[in-house]
């Protein structure tokens, strides 16, 4: 998607660079970081106290309109002009139909993001019922999940069906073991439970000395080579003592859908 989007932008840029007739080809090119000039300001009427006080501007078109407070109302004027345009063309103005060919042609609407903007009300994005508002991405985890159903009940020869919840292949909550981050040495190791305790700050980033096959392992890393006491620093306790209630004992993470059967490791062939 990214390359496609980049390509689209590149295409737009190339077309724009090659064909765009810039309004700033002559004269200074504005730099909006410093100052953005905007459109030329209409001439301000002089000598009329009312209009000066309100910051009014002179219209060359005399069809000015006033609201009930006798104040100049540019929006009434624009509506008036718009209505005349629609009527003269034989079309119905807005409010009478969905399609409005002149909505974008209204010379006064181009700078108005309010209700009468085509981009606001006529946009399909605006409807609260439009599905585009929803998080309906393929990746949305809240969407109805699509499960792969093994065909004929034979797992390993996948056929595909949708809509039925079936037992999925067994796999952990994560592909990796969070236990690597968690302290499993100071608690019972008979059951697996993620302990909310991070064991950090203990690092060994160098080898103690040159390898010698006759060297006692425990003498290298803080252990006592004269007895069999374990050095938890280099040989933590990892006793093998499986519980009879495997996989579903209290405190362990239950299996999230075992497929049954399972895998047996091949017989070891060595010594």
């Amino acid at each position, binding site marked *: 998607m990214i390359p496609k989007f980049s390509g689209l932008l590149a295409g737009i840029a190339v077309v724009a660079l090659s064909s765009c007739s810039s309004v700033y080809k002559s004269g200074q090119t504005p730099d909006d970081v410093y100052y953005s000039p905007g459109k030329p300001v209409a001439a301000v009427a002089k000598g009329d106290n009312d209009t000066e006080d309100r910051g009014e501007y002179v219209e060359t078109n005399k069809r000015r309109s006033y609201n009930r407070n006798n104040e100049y109302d540019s929006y009434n004027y624009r509506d008036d002009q718009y209505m005349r345009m629609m009527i003269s063309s034989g079309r119905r103005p807005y409010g009478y139909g969905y399609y409005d060919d002149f909505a974008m042609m209204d010379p006064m609407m181009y700078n108005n993001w309010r209700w009468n903007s085509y981009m606001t009300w006529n946009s399909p994005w605006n409807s609260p019922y439009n599905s585009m508002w929803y998080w309906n991405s393929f990746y949305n985890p809240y969407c109805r999940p699509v499960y792969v159903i093994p065909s004929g009940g034979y797992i390993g020869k996948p056929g595909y069906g949708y809509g039925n919840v079936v037992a999925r292949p067994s796999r952990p909550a994560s592909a990796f073991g*969070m236990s690597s981050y968690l302290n499993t040495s100071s608690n019972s190791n008979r059951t697996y439970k993620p302990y909310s*305790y991070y064991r950090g700050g203990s690092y060994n*980033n160098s080898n103690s000395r040159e390898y010698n096959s006759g060297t006692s392992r425990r003498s290298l890393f803080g252990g006592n080579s004269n007895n069999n006491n374990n050095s938890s620093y280099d040989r933590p306790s990892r006793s093998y003592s499986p519980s009879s209630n495997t996989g579903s004992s209290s405190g362990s993470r239950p299996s999230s859908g075992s497929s049954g059967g399972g895998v047996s490791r091949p017989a070891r062939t060595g010594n």
Partner: protein
Amino acid sequence: MRKSILFLFGSLATLGAWSQVPEDALRMSWSTPSGTARNQAIGGVMTSLGGDITANFINPAGIALYKTSEIVFSPGYNFFNNKSTYRGSAETNAKSSSFILGTSGLVFGISDRYKPNKSSAFSIAVNRSADFNNKIAYSGTNNFSSFSEAYAAEVAGSGLSIDDALNSSSISFPSRMALYTYLVDTLTTEGFGTEVVGTPMRYALQHDTAFLLNQSNTIETSGGITEVAISFAGNSNDKFYFGGSLGVPILNYERNSVYTETDATNQSNNYFNSATLRERYTSKGVGVNLKLGAIFKPVNFIRVGAAIHTPTLYGLKDSYDATMETDLDNYNEPTSVTIRELNDGYTPEYKYDLTSPWRFLVGGSYVFHGVEDIKQQRGFISADLEYVTYSSNRFKNGEENTIDNQEYYDAVNSVIKQIYKGALNAKIGGELKFNTIMARAGFAYYGNPYEDKDLDGKRMYISGGVGYRDKGFFIDLAYVHRLTDDVNFPYRLPDKANTYAETKGSGGNVIVTAGIKF
């Protein structure tokens, strides 16, 4: 604490050694400088300056400074060289390069000739907010620990028998592969009883002798986060500017790694010759966020700004594939196993939500002659401060009928709170303007997100550039040089001292921005 200066850019990816683990959250939220060439040349400052399309992704109020319109395209090229050391070994180099996309898009400035002190603006833009293209490699000898110990510890801590653990969804796939290939097995010795041990250390534990292993790790990552933003902004009296931006980041990440451990003792019949774990991990998804900001210009030459970025809510889907190969000398014949063999022929996939950190930004600018006449414009200097709550990253289970998996994510979230912290990023930059020609320079410092003081994760970016603007057209060129340090754990042991590689990165990116005013 190491004093080395880190440069990271792509080294985000060096952190991603696992999926759905704390490093993933950091990788996705540890954004790097990106923007137009002009913005990158000035260190990425844009909280108070405005007038550049990059404001879409920093402070949308900056769009409100536009009363004109423009179209912008920013292609770029990124390269890096990572030098890694591991347990005192010589440096290992890893180089690569990739094309990137700086901020590109459209800005429509909308002014009203009848209300010259008010205007509004609209913009749609795309930006490569994170680039995951990276490669690191390191190797060294180790007589203290083996990667197989991580699996041994997990199996021992599970309370499961070997056969049950091999098929249990409570046990990670690498551990199950290690069981299947006898890289992990039980050992009974006097004084210690029956233990779960890694076969690379089996002989040493059994006979109380030293062991020595060669360990090497190569990690190559690709992808990135491309964010599309739509912004609306308004200007009141050319003093108050405000804006909002809806961002939709699209994430695509792939990681391929090969970890190898071999016997370095030249002994035969010591139960171990070699083991290799090959992994391929992908993560894809889409997120959504909101950025709000304001800029105040009390006088013509002063600007102050502030912005807030809500967390991005990602819906992500991961896939993981791996192969383990072992050659255990006289202990077992060479064996290999894949994930699919342990998962009924399927490659496992995971769906989950990730909520990224909050970001709070403030900035100030001084503009020399911010007037309409281009010939009188002299330049500016601007600075930003940004605070990112890295420790607030949160995972959430995203799969139905697997409520129990949330327990796993709760553990991840707990660890995230403990190993990451909020970090302060500082940026400063400026421009000198000579009519149509501009020269720029900038500097950015990204604070260390690691709570552990032993781990260094800060980044520095030094940048410069030039620009030309005339006849309705502008073009900018920038170079950003990166200095980063990072760490990479080849494996993590829960009950024993860990080891990690240190990576010093250097490199840069060249970016060009071309645009047209209309």
